[in-house]
């Protein structure tokens, strides 16, 4: 597997959106079972431009614009996957996945099990989550934990361009339905991305930064914010270890538990609403594990407020964790203030 930092491996700077697009283009060129389907994924290139140009390249038969029919999009993926294709669907905003729930949860996730393990549903449903664009409550949802709670689905959330491409290619080649959650504010962020068709295995967590004082489990854009926070904290002598699960379900919990055994302290950071969220899963995995005996402080969740995302820019920013709130929370935890 090429390295994220290895320019020698032909890595160049790409944005997260470009990395995704490159992955899509490469696999479509290689595997004719792969096709794209979703609202405005064609000429428009997708609401966030991820599939820009792909319709020109692969034609309207393989880059399919749909009517506004999110249940239909999910079903189109399920039915084609069940009969041998490898569809990549797009739900324009994660909020609208609420309309696909029956298909995803009662069909895609369960078909294999209900059919006695005799069918496969190799589909990927890409969707952008998160706030920060001023699009308010119905265009800013972070619903990943719903899918984590559905056996049969895999849930992937890349936090960097490198991960985005490698995980997307793995997801498409995986034989299970994968909910692939992107983040709107990450699309334009840049990073090194090898040109070749590399994959990053699903269910493999990534220790993004090493540290001794506190384990920070962060997902999606919170990984970036945690990295920024780490720099600030380092100036105060606080070294946080940042772990990005990348695949939320099935979770690779071992690096997290090992880390907590080392640091004795842990916090989870995610954008989604705190109550009922993924943080609870991580906290529980830590507390239920052998790491429990090593804990020197409560495990804390830093997450979105329990409110819908407000429109007003200041309110919006204050609804979800920012670099400064990570710094503050980490400092408190490390300094024994909880």
């Amino acid at each position, binding site marked *: 597997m090429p390295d994220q930092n290895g320019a020698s491996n032909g890595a160049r700077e790409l944005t997260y959106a470009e990395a995704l697009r490159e992955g899509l283009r490469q696999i479509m060129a290689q595997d004719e079972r792969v096709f794209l389907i979703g609202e405005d994924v064609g000429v428009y290139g997708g609401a966030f431009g991820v599939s820009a140009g792909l319709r020109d390249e692969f034609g309207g*038969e393989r880059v399919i614009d749909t*009517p506004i029919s999110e249940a239909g999009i*999910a079903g*189109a993926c399920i*039915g084609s996957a069940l009969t041998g*294709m490898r569809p990549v669907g797009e739900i324009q905003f994660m909020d609208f996945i609420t309309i696909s729930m*029956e*298909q995803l949860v009662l069909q895609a996730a369960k078909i294999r099990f209900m059919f*006695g393990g005799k069918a496969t549903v*190799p589909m990927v449903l890409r969707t952008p989550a998160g706030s920060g664009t001023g699009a308010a409550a119905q265009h800013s949802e972070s619903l990943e934990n719903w899918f984590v709670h559905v056996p049969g689905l895999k849930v992937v959330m890349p936090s960097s361009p490198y991960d985005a491409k490698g995980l997307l290619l793995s997801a498409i080649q995986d034989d299970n339905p994968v909910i692939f959650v992107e983040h709107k504010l990450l699309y334009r962020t840049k990073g090194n991305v090898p040109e070749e068709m590399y994959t990053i295995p699903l269910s493999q967590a990534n220790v993004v930064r090493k540290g001794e004082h506190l384990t920070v489990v962060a997902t999606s854009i919170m990984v970036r914010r945690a990295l920024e926070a780490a720099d600030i904290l380092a100036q105060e002598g606080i070294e946080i270890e940042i772990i990005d699960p990348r695949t939320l379900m099935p979770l690779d919990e071992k690096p997290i538990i090992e880390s907590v055994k080392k640091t004795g302290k842990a916090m989870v950071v995610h954008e989604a609403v705190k109550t009922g969220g993924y943080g609870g899963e991580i906290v529980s995995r830590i507390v239920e594990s052998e790491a429990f005996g090593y804990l020197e402080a409560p495990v804390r969740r830093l997450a979105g407020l329990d409110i819908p995302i407000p429109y007003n820019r200041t309110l919006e920013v204050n609804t979800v964790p920012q670099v400064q709130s990570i710094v503050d929370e980490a400092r408190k935890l490390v300094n024994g203030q909880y």
Partner: protein
Amino acid sequence: MQPVAVDELQKRGISTEYALELLTKMMQIRAFEEKAEELFALGRVHGTMHLSIGQEASAVGLSSALDSRDYLLNTHRGHGHCLAWYGSSPDLMMAEFMGKEAGYCRGRGGSMHIANVDTNNLGANGIVGGGLPISVGVGLTIKLRKTDQVAVAVFGDGGANTGAFHESVNMASIWKLPVIYFCENNQYAMSMAFQRAFNIEHISDRAVGYGIKGITVDGNDLLQVHDAAVEAVARARAGEGPTLIESVTYRWKGHSKSDKQAYRTRDEVKEWQEKDPIRRFSAFLGMSDAERDDMQAKARQRIEEAVTFSENSPEPDVAHIMEGVYA
């Protein structure tokens, strides 16, 4: 056989043997479901079930127009379509119904989820309308692969009021997918009468809204169903897109095992029982009552064998409970 029957069958290229095979299918369906009901009454099966007794011509008429390359998306009331499907085994169906390891789904699915992907039977569905969006995907596979297959999505009158119906039929229409939308209007969605749930006379009228062909047939007349299906199949294979077929029929039994049927009268049920699709087709073929009863007895015998097969099959092992969630 009566001359008119010979004529009618010949016109359609249906041999006498094949006609008898179709009748046998209907009778096996009837026998399977009667047995299912009995097993429930005896407490030998748990869960629930949805019997299609009275609707057999609809299932068999439809499958008679399809062949082994085609795909089926079935409903909760799906025993009939499943048995009518090419290559289906009453043994493996009954074993599934009885929750056994030898069942089509290793006892994990049960009555509402019987599937056999090997024969393109993509499964019954516990969700009303649940198979409809999936049919769009199956249609896309066919279109992308440029084969001449057809997918048929079966649903009830109730299913025609789901949002899934609307999105799916529209998508199939605009992309001219080879999908047949086969609506079994058996007059009720559970307790909700067709007349109360629709403000139209024929569900097939909805085809207008999607720019596709819609047709209503007498679902208790095997040949009428067959004809409509043949036409729809031809349209689909020719790349002319989907058809909406409304097959008007009636379920004789309650919605599921626990239904007091307060929403309909006994007279109404009786009236429809007189339109028994099996008697109708056997009479059409010129069979005597005795001949028919004899054939029905054989069908029952076949189902008894399926029960014996199932009884001899082991229960799933709890040690393997986590299997089959992920590939």
